[in-house]
């Protein structure tokens, strides 16, 4: 997020290039993510979706993770019983895995499909 806030989507001065696009000329599912994150941070969600259709869900994953770390840490410290703490950790694991799958399944699919396509 810091990286995306530092570089400007209007200037397009992002230093990282996509190797996949350089080699094949075709964009990969993660192309335009930096651009999209910058646009989301400046409130231009529609433009962000145009740059990368998965950008909003990936952004939300990282944002919610940041939020969850603070909130669940507070709950964890306040919970005195071991059972309650275990419940918080279990809930954290389940929510995080679910959010991760929702956000990153298209990327995982692409990587696995590309790898499988080599053989």
């Amino acid at each position, binding site marked *: 997020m810091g990286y995306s806030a530092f570089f400007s989507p209007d200037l397009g001065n992002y230093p990282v290039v996509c*190797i996949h696009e350089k*080699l094949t000329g075709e964009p990969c599912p993660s192309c335009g993510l930096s651009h999209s994150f910058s646009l989301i941070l400046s409130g231009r969600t529609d433009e962000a979706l145009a740059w990368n259709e998965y950008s909003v869900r990936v952004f939300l994953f990282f944002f919610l993770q940041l939020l969850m770390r603070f909130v669940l840490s507070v709950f964890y410290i306040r919970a005195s019983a071991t059972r309650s703490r275990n419940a918080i950790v279990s809930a954290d694991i389940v929510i995080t895995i679910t959010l991760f799958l929702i956000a990153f399944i298209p990327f995982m699919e692409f*990587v696995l499909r590309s790898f499988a396509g080599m053989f």
Partner: protein
Amino acid sequence: MEQYIDRSAQNLGVAALVTAIVTFVMSVIPCVGTLAIIPGIVAVILAIVGLTRATDQSRGLVIAALIIGTVAIMFSIAQWFFIGKIADKSDNWKEDIEGVFEDIKVDILNEIEKGDFSITIESGDEKVEIKTTVQDKKLQEKLEKLESGTKPDTLKK
């Protein structure tokens, strides 16, 4: 002493697990995943060191870190393989294109020697073919015959 070993193993386990999770998230993103191999190796080394010091209590944490780190490295290696394959393929394409141009060059030179040109331009369903004959040798023969006073074939009638 045992408590000290247990705590260091647990700390190593936590460090390995955090590194492994971050690496895993990185490794599934196309292109970025290629960079995940470095923190992945760090996570696995931390987990292995943690495993040597781990007691029964902290073993689960370290094993989880080891598994996640290994899977992340596998994803990263898969991306390296894929990119390597594309690079190889693109090199072949380059050679193929060069080969095609070389063939075209040879064909053109042969056609020039024969004196026959044929240029075909295709755009969708439309096709334009231009045929021309230079016939350098024939023209040269005609010129030589004219210069020597004999009538060329075309002027015989």
